[in-house]
């Protein structure tokens, strides 16, 4: 058929059969995911929000850490692609019975899933599984390491608004030390040529952040000045126990995104937050609900981006798993 030749020519592919992190992805691969997500987003606007693409494929969502937003987003993405899905939460799994991660996953693998979407509190847990398991592994957040689909949906949202990523000033503000969203976003934005500023209290600044290729500052004003995008990170109340911050009150005073601070950004700035949000802690409600906030768009784009990732990986998966060709 005539169409095959052009499709082959236009097709790019992901080199890995897993999505463990943004690290290792090229700009072309990131672009492919974002472009594919455009088509996926259209499906979400239809009356029948479902395509038969992953019919007969089984995807297990294995969440060792509580998550509503990300798990729901993956589940919807999977269902829109017609995959059979199963979600397992850590509380109901064998992990609490002292079973090791590998044994838990081997038991699940014995039931032949095609993909495992996993969230885990330990950095690198998906890498351990990717080395030892047959299924394709999609990292839905590992410890303080990466959260690649979040960075991809952030990039998708930014691109929708700005038309590009290169050359934009993106300020990421908050608990930098513990944030996997920060790490994935920094790697992605650097790969795509954006100028990234990272801002937070000195106690929550990752050691060696100089190596991340970002401009680090403890001044919100400096970070926000002239920014095209301001991305707020969640600050967890537990952080007070590690002597990271004296109080959430003081944190808001020094680092909260207030309307006054937001005004230092470009007039067409977009304000982002990966959620869940702490109003009055890291972000003022007026900003969170204001005209430049794209926080809810991020959530809807999450489904499209995750559909794109699952679609692109599903094809890769065949090659290795079934040994075809």
């Amino acid at each position, binding site marked *: 058929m*005539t169409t095959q030749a052009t*499709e082959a020519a236009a097709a790019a592919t992901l080199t890995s059969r897993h999505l463990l992190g943004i690290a290792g992805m090229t700009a072309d691969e990131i672009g492919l995911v974002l472009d594919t997500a455009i088509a996926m987003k259209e499906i979400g606007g239809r009356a029948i929000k479902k395509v038969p693409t992953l019919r007969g494929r089984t995807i297990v969502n294995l969440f060792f850490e509580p998550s509503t937003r990300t798990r729901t987003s993956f589940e919807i993405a999977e269902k829109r692609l017609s995959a059979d899905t199963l979600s397992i939460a850590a509380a109901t799994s064998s992990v609490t019975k002292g079973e090791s991660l590998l044994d838990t996953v081997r038991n699940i693998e014995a039931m032949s899933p095609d993909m495992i979407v996993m969230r885990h509190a330990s950095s690198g847990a998906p890498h351990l599984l990717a080395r030892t398991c047959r299924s394709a592994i999609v990292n839905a957040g590992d410890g303080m390491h990466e959260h690649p689909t979040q960075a991809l949906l952030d990039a998708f949202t930014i691109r929708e608004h700005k038309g590009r990523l290169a050359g934009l000033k993106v300020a990421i503000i908050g608990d930098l030390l513990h944030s996997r969203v920060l790490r994935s976003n920094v790697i992605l934005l650097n790969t795509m040529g954006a100028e990234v500023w990272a801002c937070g209290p000195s106690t929550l600044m990752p050691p060696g952040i100089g190596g991340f290729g970002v401009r680090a500052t403890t001044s919100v004003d400096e970070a926000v000045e002239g920014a095209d995008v301001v991305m707020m990170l969640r600050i967890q109340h537990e952080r007070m126990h590690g002597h990271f911050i004296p109080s959430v009150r003081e944190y808001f005073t020094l680092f909260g995104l207030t309307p006054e601070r937001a005004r230092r950004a470009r007039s067409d700035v977009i304000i982002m937050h990966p959620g869940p949000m702490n109003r009055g802690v890291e972000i003022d409600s007026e900003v969170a609900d204001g005209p430049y906030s794209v926080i809810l768009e991020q959530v809807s784009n999450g489904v499209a981006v995750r559909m794109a990732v699952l679609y692109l990986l599903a094809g890769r998966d065949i090659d290795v798993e079934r040994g075809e060709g």
Partner: protein
Amino acid sequence: MPQVMDADRMSRALTRIAHEILERNCGLDELALVGIRTRGVPLARRLARALREINGDDVPTGALDITLYRDDLMRHAVGPQPVVRRTEIAFSIDDRKILLVDDVLYTGRTIRAALDALIDFGRPRGIQLVVLVDRGHRELPIKADYVGKNLPTSLSQSVQVRLQEIDGVDEVVIEGEP
């Protein structure tokens, strides 16, 4: 590689099809064109233009990407996933007569996928199939309602449709030994 259609013949074929569409449907009421990506889309637009020239009315035109409906999607040997493009159907297909447009009709599998995809958008009154070239070798019970040219081919041959909008030239060529 013998050229089996040039720009002129292609244009005449499309004009003829436009007339046939008008005859068969007694006018353009409730008609809509949906081109299958990639080359069905410019062909659908050309047909819309031809219909307007004849009749003066605009026919809504959309683009359908059938990648996610393909039955061979998860059966690729080694190779990348086909690129998914946007489907753009900005009108309701409910109770309309849809003219589905593609460049080449071959096994029928693309059309099968397109029918599935289309049905997900609503319940059209009817679907008619328009193809520029029918090269035979059907694997599914599918038949075109309007054909620009019937082209007997062997399985080893391939048919290339090139369009000005995409390829910079209008022609149909047949490659390979018969």
